[in-house]
């Protein structure tokens, strides 16, 4: 996958929970494509319509807390954001995100330095993200996890590996 990319920042706060990412009443819709326009609906109903492929979500602590509903990372992945950069993540969401091809990066300081609309540059090879000249370290993501993200998640990755 691309090891360096730049994206426009959409900023969300602390404790962005799975009911905000995709409220219960939209889970019955037939597809992730149908659900994705309701992403973040309780907080910012207009947001899903504004997010463009390649944009970056920057958030505070405990992103993805709450239920194990996998539609949450799935619809963020379906919005084609290039990654989420949060101060920290909830555990179940973290696994679900990589399993669904959504790249998560963690940095404690970026959130407080950037504004919505800023451009952030991600350099995966050096495990850093940049806001202008200022660099912020992110934990390095193992190569096989990056390959899983590139394949679109765990199932496509396993199928690719198994040649199916």
């Amino acid at each position, binding site marked *: 996958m691309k090891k360096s990319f730049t994206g426009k920042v959409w900023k969300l706060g602390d404790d962005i929970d799975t*009911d905000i990412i995709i409220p219960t009443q939209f889970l019955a819709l037939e597809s992730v494509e149908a659900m994705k326009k309701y992403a973040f*609906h309780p907080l910012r109903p207009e947001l899903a319509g504004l997010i463009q492929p390649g944009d970056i979500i920057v958030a505070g602590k405990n992103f993805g807390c709450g239920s194990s509903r996998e539609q949450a990372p799935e619809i963020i992945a379906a919005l084609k954001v290039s990654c989420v950069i949060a101060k920290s993540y909830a555990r179940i969401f973290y696994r679900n995100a990589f399993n669904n091809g959504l790249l998560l990066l963690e940095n404690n300081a970026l959130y407080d330095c950037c504004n919505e609309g800023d451009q952030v540059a991600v350099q995966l090879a050096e495990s850093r993200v940049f806001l202008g000249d200022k660099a912020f370290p992110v934990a390095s993501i193992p190569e096989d996890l990056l390959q899983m993200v590139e394949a679109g998640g765990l199932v496509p990755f396993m*199928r690719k590996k198994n040649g199916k």
Partner: protein
Amino acid sequence: MGMTIGEKILARACGKESVRPGEIINAKVDLCMSNDGTTHLNIDIFENQLHGEKVFDPEKVVFIVDHNIPAESPKTAEAHKKMRNFAQKHQIPFYEGAGVCHQIMIEDYVVPGQLIVAADSHTCAYGGLGAFGTGVGCTDFTSIMHSGETWLMVPETLKFVLEGEFKEGVYARDLILKIIGDIGANGATYKVMEFAGPAIKNLTIDDRVVLCNMAVEAGAKSGLIEPDERAINYVKSRGRHEMFLFQSDEDAVYEKIYTYNLADIEPIVAIPHNVDHIAVVTEIGDVKIDQAFIGSCNNGRIEELRVAAQILQGKKVAPYMKLLISPASKEVYLQALTEGLVDIFVESGAMVLNANCSVCWGGCQGVIGEGETLISTGTRNFKGRAGHPNSSVYLASAATVAASALTGKITDPRGMMG
């Protein structure tokens, strides 16, 4: 160096003598469970993407329809049908309309020392019986249903030493809200919350499940309580005799140890829109409510229903208020009927619903409208959780919810205990 109960359970699950926090293990699961929140998605992945033919062991996979039951739309009915057909085809135990999945698991499956993985975040409830329960998403679940295995990181453990006894009108529910408020919604992320100390022996199985079930609201991987005679007797009384009894070593290593005296706890309310945003009920002022709910995997068991009945007996729900009650399982429902609790509820003006996730899940029953306020014994008060995005949910004990239903505003249950 000793091990905690959580580490011992994970060591057994991966066939090792010992494990250490931070170590990644490949563990065999004793049971896996999925409910209608996501099972239709698991089945799609299993059949269409993995081309799976068999589940790893039909006796170790459980399907439970509890989130949207009875179905509120043809789409939901379709999802249930898919689940029912799959369960029949693969000869998997299948429950539909028999209660909230975690209560059914506790009644019919869980024994101390098991590793249980389920596609639901509140799976940590099984720690009330000394089993390591943890939630996963549907991709992980499908792979586990196929292989019976998964990778897990061995978590650090936080220990909560409990002393003393609750005062009247205060419950395990208040204690766990207080703890989550103190450590924060990410205060235990990736970790085990182990509840221990001299007060445990006086806590009922229901109390223990209440504590462990909410561990995920502090971000925990699991909640755990060492099984004692009470837990062992409960499991045996349910006809299950094979169990794996582990206890934390005296020199086990904890990341942090907290101590709580139960006598210091007061009735707690979690304020919209986060579970860790708490206040003592006497300090929140005048909060008018539109609807009250008693039920869910956290707080819909017989003991909570008894407390609610004690408060509601001979009284009426406040004008313009709705009180909805959903027993956590068919068994709890039957017990409540036998004890005359359902009569008390209905006479008070409450609506008694079938055993399901109900209002807590905000999907099929008792959703609230714009600007409305709910007080609930459910697990979460996230924005929009119970219906309209601009509505509010307060969380409290069954006693506080029942007391509030009588007055129409959030009310301290002490002094209203009948």
